[in-house]
């Protein structure tokens, strides 16, 4: 992967450089900085391998084709919940979900379900939720999930009204 740029490595370099300069300039802060970093490092080490394994398993055992197959079949409340579950299972960044969403719209799926699917894909990934549970706690995680599901349904309904027929022609062309 020579040709690919790695902005993350650049970012790591900048942060490390900055940390070294700051810690050498203000040695009295060293203890606090290192203690805070160390604590988060331990928490990451305890949880990240498990989360990575879950993500690997999900991406191998829940292929994209399966998601498309199950979505768009059901309508109504059931359809929305299937869309949310289907969106939260496979792993990968949001831009992978856009072509899937586009395929679903072309197949005639409801805008509401596609929005539910995209939103679930972006913020209710099961392995990622494990990280949220670890760092922010059960109450935070559950409250955010519940509110997200509720508001996403409202948003889907609103968007369905706003997009309307005109835009739907876009997918047929």
């Amino acid at each position, binding site marked *: 992967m020579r040709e690919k740029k790695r902005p993350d490595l650049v970012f790591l370099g900048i942060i490390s450089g900055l940390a070294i300069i700051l810690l050498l300039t203000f040695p009295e802060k060293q203890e606090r900085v290192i203690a805070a970093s160390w604590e988060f490092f331990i928490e*990451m080490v305890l949880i990240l391998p498990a*989360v990575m394994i879950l*993500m690997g398993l999900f991406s191998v055992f829940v292929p994209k084709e399966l998601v498309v197959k199950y979505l768009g079949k059901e309508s109504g409340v059931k359809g929305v919940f299937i869309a949310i579950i289907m969106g939260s299972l496979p792993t990968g960044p949001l831009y992978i979900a856009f072509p899937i969403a586009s395929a679903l719209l072309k197949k005639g799926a409801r805008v509401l379900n596609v929005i539910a699917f995209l939103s679930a894909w972006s*913020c209710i990934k099961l392995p990622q939720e494990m990280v949220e549970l670890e760092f*922010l706690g059960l109450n935070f995680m559950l409250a955010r999930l519940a509110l997200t599901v509720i508001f996403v349904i409202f948003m889907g309904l609103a968007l369905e009204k706003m997009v309307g027929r005109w835009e739907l022609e876009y997918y047929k062309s």
Partner: protein
Amino acid sequence: MNSTFVFVNLFAFICLLLAFRRDREKTRRALVMALRSFLRILPMVIATIILIGLILGFVSKERISEVIGEQAGIKGVLIVASLGAILHIPSIISFPLAASLLRGGASVTSVAVFITTLTMIGIVTLPVEIKELGRKFAILRNSLSFIIAILIGLIMGRIL
């Protein structure tokens, strides 16, 4: 928070065991994929850990809470919402970062808004979204997500 760590690791272990019994070859592939994505995300994880140390060590609680805490009001919420919309970082990393800000003096509202806009809105990926889903759909989805992120954050600030 120790029980969470036990639960997560146990859950992963059981999934792994079930997967292994079902299909060895696929499980092997999943583990290779896990290792690869772990190595890919590692630089960002290390950078985040250092960043968290710097934030908690150098920025005072008063300063953090002034900008994104309870006193910051709606302006602070708008700042974090926009930051979350612009930044393009994996959610795995956003949670520890959010937790450190919360401990450093940020409000629950700010942190919830940040996570929600970060995951749901992508300014960087907007061109792809427009290409795949059309301009109207993409722009409406992102703007509505921005609004609901703020509503979710405000309610969470009230109930937690």
